[in-house]
């Protein structure tokens, strides 16, 4: 009898329905972020490019949704090849079953896999803001397959891959760089890929600097920001891979940092531009969510306010800087995700362990040392992302081309790439 209880107990301690429920719910939430992003970006472009812009995000879901299952997950999280990339043991999800896996003791391995799939989906979608309103659709399809394989999978592996015995196997993870929910893997990664694309490959949109390119639909932007905020609870609190103290703490700081970042962005905008804008509020929210991402399981509420306020201000300035440099990062991906991610990664080093009881800093590592590790993490992911993205895009540029013709750009991508208009007249 006691035997039986113990057995059932053990099983219960292994597989936990509450944890599984939370990770599944979180996976759904993170999936929703990509349609959210579609609207965040779709609202910002001009009328003639709305559907094409939305399509970029939607295609990320479709393409990565399949690629991840086929080989992406194995490369990113499979048994390591020298800490650099996973091997192909788990190709087609071979051996990735519904029993708890190496990554989480209380949920099915596939739950972890699909949760990670959602991260792999949104990351390339984030990049698309850099070449919005001028990317060729056919090239985009190829780009996303290559990028996921050559950029996302390795970086995810460096930071998050584990051995079967539960020790880190990726080189950055082993080193001790902290990234709770994807500051480096997702945001710095996407941000620096965006910079490479906008600065060195695509060039500026026709009319950049002379024609207004105002958001065609501000409510769509806020809808997107709202869905992103909502989904980000899954992103960060889901990264606890369980429904307990850690998830709760991550949830709390996520909300708080985002709120503070709205205030930060609006404050500086109010001073600089004389009026606080609605697009600014939405942008600030995203900046704050980005910055808290790497820190979300490591800090308490008060640091999260500082991280958020900082993100609002720093990202605002970063976006202005890009504009000064006349780099047409059309929807400000680098300023918000790249720099927001860098700020978050550094702030994680600074504040980790403060105001939080469920986690404590690894002993014997000083703040300065941790900051150093964070810098390594930032540099490695930013560098790899920038360089490899550049190579991929240049290869495409000089073969099939990455940019639509000038006439197609003038007509708009909706008509030229998809032969449909977003809205009917009359």
């Amino acid at each position, binding site marked *: 009898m006691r035997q039986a209880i113990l057995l059932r107990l053990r099983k219960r301690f292994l597989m936990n329905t509450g944890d599984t429920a939370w990770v599944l719910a979180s996976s759904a939430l993170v999936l929703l972020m990509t349609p959210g992003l579609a609207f965040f970006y779709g609202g*910002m472009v001009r009328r003639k490019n709305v559907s094409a812009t939305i399509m970029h995000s939607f295609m990320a879901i479709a393409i990565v949704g399949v690629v991840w299952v086929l080989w992406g997950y194995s490369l990113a999280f499979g048994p390591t090849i020298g800490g650099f990339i996973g091997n192909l043991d788990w190709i087609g999800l071979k051996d990735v079953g519904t029993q708890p896996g190496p990554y989480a003791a209380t949920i099915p391995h596939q739950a972890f896999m699909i949760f990670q799939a959602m991260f792999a989906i949104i990351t390339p979608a984030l990049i698309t803001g850099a070449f919005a309103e001028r990317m060729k659709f056919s090239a985009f399809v190829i780009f996303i397959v290559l990028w996921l394989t050559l950029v996302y999978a390795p970086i995810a592996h460096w930071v998050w891959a584990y051995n079967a015995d539960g020790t880190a196997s990726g080189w950055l993870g082993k080193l001790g760089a902290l990234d709770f929910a994807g500051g480096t893997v997702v945001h710095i990664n996407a941000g620096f890929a965006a910079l490479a694309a906008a600065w060195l490959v695509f060039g500026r949109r026709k009319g*950049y*600097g002379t024609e207004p*390119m*105002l958001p065609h639909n501000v409510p769509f932007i806020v809808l997107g920001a709202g869905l992103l905020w909502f989904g980000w609870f899954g992103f960060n609190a889901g990264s606890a891979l369980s429904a307990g103290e850690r998830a709760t703490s991550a949830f709390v700081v996520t909300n708080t940092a985002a709120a503070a970042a709205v205030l930060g962005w609006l404050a500086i905008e109010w001073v600089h531009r004389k009026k606080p804008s609605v697009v600014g509020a939405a942008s600030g929210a995203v900046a704050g969510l980005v910055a808290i991402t790497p820190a979300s399981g490591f800090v308490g509420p008060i640091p999260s306010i500082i991280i958020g306020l900082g993100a609002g201000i720093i990202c605002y300035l970063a*976006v202005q800087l890009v504009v000064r440099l*006349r780099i047409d990062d059309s929807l*400000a991906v680098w300023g918000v995700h790249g720099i927001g991610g860098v700020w978050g990664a550094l702030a994680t080093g600074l504040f980790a362990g403060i105001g939080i009881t469920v986690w404590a800093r690894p002993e014997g590592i000083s703040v300065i040392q941790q900051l150093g590790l964070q810098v390594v993490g930032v540099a490695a992911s930013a560098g790899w992302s920038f360089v490899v993205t550049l190579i991929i895009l240049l290869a495409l540029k000089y073969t099939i081309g990455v940019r639509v013709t000038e006439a197609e750009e003038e007509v708009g991508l909706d008509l030229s790439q998809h032969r449909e208009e977003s809205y009917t007249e009359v």
Partner: protein
Amino acid sequence: MNKIEAIIRPEKLDAVKDALAEAGFVGLNAVSVTGRGVQRGVIQQARGAPPVVVDMLHKVKIEVVVKEGDTEKVIDTITKAARTGNIGDGKIFVSTVADVIRIRTGERGTTAV
């Protein structure tokens, strides 16, 4: 008969149309346009782009067709209701209409106005 086209500030549409009704001119139609004039555009900045002078501003164009003799009264009414005194108040164009037909009855000319 004359056609009076007035390009006004969107926020003055209500005032203009009420003033016209009061002056006895019910028939009219209005459409949103964007226009450029002496008025300097405002400087706007999209999130990832440099500030640009938006020189095409949102306006409303109203059209009223009236009998020759009413032209001045209509011009006057519109001018008064639409004026703020600031640049961007808009313009009125007057042109000749050769004929007017009421679709419902087929009536033509001034009785159809």
